[in-house]
């Protein structure tokens, strides 16, 4: 689960690719739409099906929660579609259901978003419900307490999951004094402390037009979109978006933590600092990450899964957050193979830093990166997500056309230099949850937060 989520994040945040290749997706044309009221959206018109898919994101997620209110962003996301304006929870959800409208909110570490999917015939109602959810959420007692209980139960359930324990410990150890070190889903205690006033304040702070990005795909033209944008977002305040947290420095660099749990397979999370989203070396880094961890055929999968059968899956990805840029990874293996697996990860890391990639690896990675883009666009939702993330990352609207050249122009010299910068074997911090044999922890595990 985490694998899927995290890998998707890395793609949403930076690894986007290419239009206009041979056999590429020239068919997809991105339009910048500015509403009469001045609200901007990026649009891919597609009238083949009577469906509109809509994605919006705001600056500010778990990282801007007040200390002690961990999980607030997530709780707000769960409650915005549980009653708004004249409709209580049941009435609101019934209106969605009767019109077969999909509406959901989501919170990340740095951002907050909404996704909406509707049949064209119900788009007025759909956008109206989105507007109400953002501007007049009710936070009635019944849904608040119901959702609170469900979140607490979910936390208790996931608290025993090795993957959750490993990931949470990693972040806490790496960022002891920074919001990123706090559990973004919250804790049983912090969820219990969250009040309706906290939720209202969070919604007021985050749901602003100032740093809003909108992506739309489907059966809608620019004129109609303009009208809906004003109607839906016109009432949001134009106050400044919440400030991103300060840049963070990673702690516990190079340490190995071990948490004993009675499982037959240890879960390992590892990572260290990466390079920023706008770094001139980011194209080289994307190529190197593909070679290191791009699934079947990549170094990690070849060495650890294919050759040695040590795991079902090993992954690694870039995670450029606002306040910290990282490379994260993970692997699971039986308890008596953890020490070997950890040693191999370090070796593979060091090998890449030392020697760089091979010519063949570079050629394949470049063609993969440049060719894989249309494959992500086989349904509306990922296209809408891409439109939002391009804006979030301040990419120009023709970015996708130009990206292949930037990828192609990366030289072997660049790659060897960036490999030394990117893969820091000694800085890898490992968290292992399970009963690993012959693996020495180097530091005590930090106490979990409450």
């Amino acid at each position, binding site marked *: 689960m985490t694998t899927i989520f995290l890998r998707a994040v890395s793609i949403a945040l930076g690894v986007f690719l290419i239009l206009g290749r041979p056999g590429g997706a020239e068919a997809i044309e991105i339009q910048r739409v500015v509403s009469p009221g001045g609200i901007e959206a990026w649009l891919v018109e597609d009238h083949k099906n009577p469906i509109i898919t809509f994605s919006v994101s705001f600056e500010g997620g778990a990282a801007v929660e007040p200390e002690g209110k961990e999980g607030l962003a997530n709780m707000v996301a769960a409650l915005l579609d549980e009653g708004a304006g004249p409709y209580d929870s049941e009435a609101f959800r019934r209106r969605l259901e009767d019109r077969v409208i999909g509406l959901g909110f989501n919170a990340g570490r740095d951002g907050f978003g909404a996704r909406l999917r509707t049949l064209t015939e119900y788009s007025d109602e759909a956008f109206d419900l989105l507007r109400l959810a953002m501007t007049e959420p009710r936070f009635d007692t019944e849904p608040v307490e119901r959702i609170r209980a469900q979140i607490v*139960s979910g936390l208790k*359930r996931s608290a025993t999951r*090795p993957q959750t324990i490993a990931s949470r410990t990693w972040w806490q150890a790496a960022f002891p004094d920074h919001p990123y070190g706090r559990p973004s889903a919250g804790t049983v205690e912090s969820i219990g402390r969250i009040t309706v006033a906290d939720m209202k304040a969070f919604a007021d702070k985050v749901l602003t037009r100032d740093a809003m990005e909108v992506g739309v795909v489907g059966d809608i033209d620019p004129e109609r979109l303009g009208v809906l944008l004003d109607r839906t977002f016109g009432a949001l305040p134009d106050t400044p978006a919440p400030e991103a947290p300060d840049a963070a420095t990673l702690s516990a660099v190079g340490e190995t933590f071990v948490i004993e749990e009675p499982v037959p397979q240890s879960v390992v999370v590892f990572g260290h600092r990466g390079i920023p989203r706008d770094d001139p070396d980011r194209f080289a880094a994307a190529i190197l990450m593909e070679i290191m961890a791009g699934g079947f055929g990549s170094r990690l999968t070849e060495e650890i899964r294919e050759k040695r059968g040590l795991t079902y899956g090993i992954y690694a990805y870039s995670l450029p957050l606002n306040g910290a840029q990282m490379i994260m990874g993970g692997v699971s293996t039986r308890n008596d193979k953890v020490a070997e697996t950890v040693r191999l990860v370090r070796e593979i890391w060091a090998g890449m830093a030392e020697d760089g990639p091979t010519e063949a690896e570079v050629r394949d990675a470049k063609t993969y990166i440049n060719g894989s883009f249309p494959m992500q666009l086989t349904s509306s939702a*990922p296209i809408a997500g891409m439109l939002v993330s391009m804006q979030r990352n301040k990419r120009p609207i023709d970015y996708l056309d130009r990206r292949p050249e930037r990828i192609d122009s990366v030289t072997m010299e660049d790659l060897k230099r960036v490999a030394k910068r990117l893969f820091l074997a000694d800085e890898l911090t490992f968290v292992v949850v399970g009963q690993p044999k012959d693996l020495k922890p180097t530091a005590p595990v930090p106490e979990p937060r409450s």
Partner: protein
Amino acid sequence: MIRPAFGRGPVPILAAFCFLIAAGVADADAKVYEPESIMLDNGMQVVAITDQRVPVVTHMVWYRVGGADEAPGETGLAHFLEHLLFKGTDKVPSGAFSRAVSRNGGQDNAFTGYDYTAYFQTIASDKLPMVMEMEADRMVNLTLDPDEVAAERQVVLEERRSRVDNSPAALLGERTDAALYLNYPYRRPLIGWAHEIEALTRENALAFYRKWYAPNNAILVVAGDITMERLKPLAEKYYGAIPARSVPERIRPAEPEQISARRVELTHPLAGQVSWARRWLAPSRFWGESRHVMPLSVLAEVIGGGSTSRLYKELVIEQKVALSVGAFYGGGTIGPATFGFYGQPADGHTVQDLERAVESELEAILRDGVDPAEVARAVKAMEASAVYARDSVTAPAHSVGRSLAVGRTIDEIESWPEEVGAVTVEQVMEAARAVLRKPGHVTSVLRPKPAS
């Protein structure tokens, strides 16, 4: 709901993250795909689903064989063989298939169900001949290096540990299936029991391969930037050249009458929360009274299909005896399907409280019937899911391929919206009585081990 599938993994799907959709996720075999189908001379079915919005195709080969076709004692063999299909032929050595797809920007993977095994690639449409050539090659020319087989067996054991042994809910699920199905092979874990996976050999895998993998036991589905006019000559060239072979009939043992209620409980240190479920065997498209299939889908939606459903409203919002509750059903299987309910007791309530509350709600439904407005709403939502189902290149290929692999026809798949639209309240109630009045259900309970 479809029966679970195990795959070659990892990370097959990104779309799950990209959108959280409340409605329209039904198993939508809707009359929207307009697939075209032909039969090659060697008996391989070929299906094209045209959607030319992006120059991309999803190419899938479905084999009519899965975990339920394994012999006793060799659980996990169908899935193990699926992994081994990536280990190469003389022409395309181990790993080369995936690398060729990836070098061209594509994605490839595979998965195994109880009733089918499927291999697929999503790739630029001009690369379709390349993947067809490689897929056709490994239909007959698999060579297995013993060392690679041994390493892959370890991978599958790690997969089992990741997905099952490290997860109390999955461990309980295995034991529950073993209790629910008395004789039908769905009682056996698809990924295999660990001790039987350990004993699987290269020879087992090759025997299974030779027995089941043949063009006349396979279905080719290509969706996206393709037409049958373009697909037919390619299919004839690559797959049509493979001779048909005799493939055994799929013999599935009959399930005896279920007359006893059973309970399966697991207390586990990694179970963070208590949870409860109850399930019955139910008709599927090919087992039992299949006319109940669509009404049962509607019933599941009405009783437990979301936060406005009967059970959620009554038990979670009104009585507050449950933290969450819902229903599940999927009728697209060859063997008996499962109809069931799940839930978590709210704080201050026991599993027994929840169980009684669900029972009394079901009794009320069986006694008083469901509200026609509830049925109309569920039907409408399911019909709309047919429209949403069109918004994808990959999903229609999966949906059509899965239905054909279990033995349905294109006409049956395409008449789905009409079929759901015609469901009446009476049919829903008849189906409800046919399933939920049966005594032979299995209740499963997962409990955390109390702190010692």
